[in-house]
């Protein structure tokens, strides 16, 4: 029985079909990369897996750890270990990064029948991870994502991932808007989390991130489905030749 499997998935927004007969299988410990031209449905895929109510699924299924997750609300999917690093993380005015992390961590603990973490332990836990990602203390006190630069937002996404320790992390364009130093920090943040039980689904345009985070599989997605799968060499050839051959296929 596969650990994570999407079968014959058709999904889209109210008036537009975006994912069309999409199939993908991921095993524990694997790193998958999905590449493809703009507007091909990569972000939609990430959102459908995470349960964004903006999308509806017309047929197919997504099994995670033997459970059909499509009927589950987003928070339950999250608690089961699915994490989505957003391409454009949204502002939440008035709620500090620290407060948000407290809510998220304690929601996860509640799901696992654990007591909420006390303030000192929480602070300690957050600070260790934040430091590793070069996130200053001051930033933890600022309202979540309000006025953050692209790089800051991606670091905070990475911090949340590090703290929530998901089993399947879907990272949507984590490399966009990052300079080379920030990219290295974020990539390192991903690499330290890699282990035999944790899988990653990296959504990206370029192989920039992939030269720091080695994928086991690279998939080319066009018009809502995977048209070619291969190893990291596929990403390299893409960088050279572009998507043209797939678009015409």
């Amino acid at each position, binding site marked *: 029985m596969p650990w994570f499997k999407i079968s014959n998935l058709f999904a889209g927004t109210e008036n537009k079909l975006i994912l069309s007969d999409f199939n993908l299988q991921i095993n524990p410990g694997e790193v998958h990369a999905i590449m493809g031209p703009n507007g091909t449905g990569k972000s939609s895929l990430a959102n459908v897996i995470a349960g964004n109510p903006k999308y509806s699924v017309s047929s197919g299924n997504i099994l995670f750890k033997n459970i059909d997750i499509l009927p589950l609300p987003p*928070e339950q999917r999250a608690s089961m270990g699915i994490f989505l690093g957003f391409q454009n993380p949204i*502002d939440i005015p008035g709620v500090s990064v620290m407060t948000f992390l407290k809510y998220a961590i304690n*929601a*996860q603990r509640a799901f696992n029948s654990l007591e909420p973490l006390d303030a000192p332990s929480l602070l300690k836990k957050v600070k260790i991870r934040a430091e590793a990602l070069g996130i200053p203390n001051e930033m933890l006190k600022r309202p979540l994502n309000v006025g953050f630069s692209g790089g800051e937002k991606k670091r905070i996404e990475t911090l949340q991932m590090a703290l929530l320790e998901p089993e399947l992390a879907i990272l949507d364009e984590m490399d966009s808007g990052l300079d080379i130093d920030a990219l290295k920090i974020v990539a390192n943040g991903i690499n330290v989390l890699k282990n035999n039980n944790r899988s990653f689904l990296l959504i990206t345009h370029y192989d920039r991130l992939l030269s720091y985070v080695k994928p086991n599989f690279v998939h080319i997605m066009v018009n809502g489905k995977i048209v070619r799968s291969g190893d990291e060499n596929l990403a390299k050839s893409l960088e050279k030749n572009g998507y043209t051959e797939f678009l015409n296929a």
Partner: protein
Amino acid sequence: MPENLNAKLKNLTENTYKYGFSINLENDSAPIGINENIIKLISNKKNEPLWLLDFRLKAFRHWKSLKEPHWAKVTYPNIDYQKIYYYSAPKNLKSPKKLQDLDPELLKMYDKLGVPLHERENLAGITAVDAVLDSVSVTTTFKENLAKLGIIFCSISEAVQKYPDLVKKYLGSVVPYTDNFFACLNSAVFSDGSFVYIPKGVRSPIELSTYFRINAINTGQFERTLIIADDDSYVSYLEGCTAPQRDENQLHAAVVEIVVMNNAEVKYSTVQNWFPGDKNGIGGIYNFVTKRGSCIGEKSKLSWTQVETGSAITWKYPSCILKGKNSVGEFFSVALTNNLQQADTGTKMIHIGENSSSTIIAKSISAGKSLSAYRGMVKMSPQAINAQNFSKCDNLLIGNKCSAYTIPVMQNLNNSARIAHEATTSKISEEQLFYCQQRGISADDAISLIVNGFCKEVMKHLPMEFAVEASRLISVSLEGASVG
């Protein structure tokens, strides 16, 4: 009250409104309705001096000439003022000297509400409490400790007996009985409330607190609070309110008057959680309240902080008259409405003194099919040289069946005075909600997190314990609200 009704109430309340229970107390009530005899009876029961009866009767005669105001953005069926009890007192309560003398049922009720009446439970000395049940003040804790500092904190009935000069001088000095319909009615029939006097140069070491509770059925609550802060004094005063869950509406028409002298500061915080009515808008309190303070001294400061989550209808504008040179007025407000609640609330800042300044931060959160209006007035009188005001009104909408209005009035009669006003309206977006949910936070918790973030600017002005309670209350009041 019949047993089965009591049980029914209990059942109802355990679902949503936590404070909705009522208790079986024998009540000593005046006959239903209002006329001069009722007023004489109230005055007589309280053994009041003639000047006060006179004040009440003048108010009543004036009230009869007034019409209930309907300019507020709220709608409700006509109130039959002859179908209200204007006086109700728990029977076994003839001026209890000690806590032991109180009806055990009553103590149980306050226990359930979490009001720390027992001084022994309150040795840490954070708060002194005056508890007002229906129409009378039940007990005031910590009175003796405060007395050592010269601070007077007692029920207004007691103050009438013991400190008649102070009461006579200031009662009606900020809110005259002619002020408005509800304040006028209150002046005629007010039953009890709190009285505070902080002498010159004294900073109250503890928060003073009044806890209001309507228990009896069909009873109006007309409490009257008078706070006087003498030169160079400071006091922080808290007010909390709850009521049982009942099917009919109950009228609450209070008056709060505050006098702030030279260099004195009064901080007045309210967490108002009167029963808001049920999901279908049945029952709930009509909260028609007049609150006003006069900063008569130089450098005097009055700060109103309110968190309004309860009541079927709220009609309330805590205001400051800034007479003193360099006087300061502040209004920090969170008004949350859900289901079919209606709130029309705001403030008036009347600048008279030179260099007087005021700040208004009003946040409204509307969910369900509720309606929320901010109504405010900033007036710069001709003599208010260099006076300044800053106002900020933010509305947050949850879902698409609620509405919010901002109705600011600005009147500047002095060229050197400045008024600044900002207003925003936003919605909790599906994206914000999804982001939180993706991190494992439930939709309910996410809404409460976002709303508390929205209110933070106001909540930080509340005393610590109150802020925690208020934030929890906001979460509870929003349970089941939907953004869709």
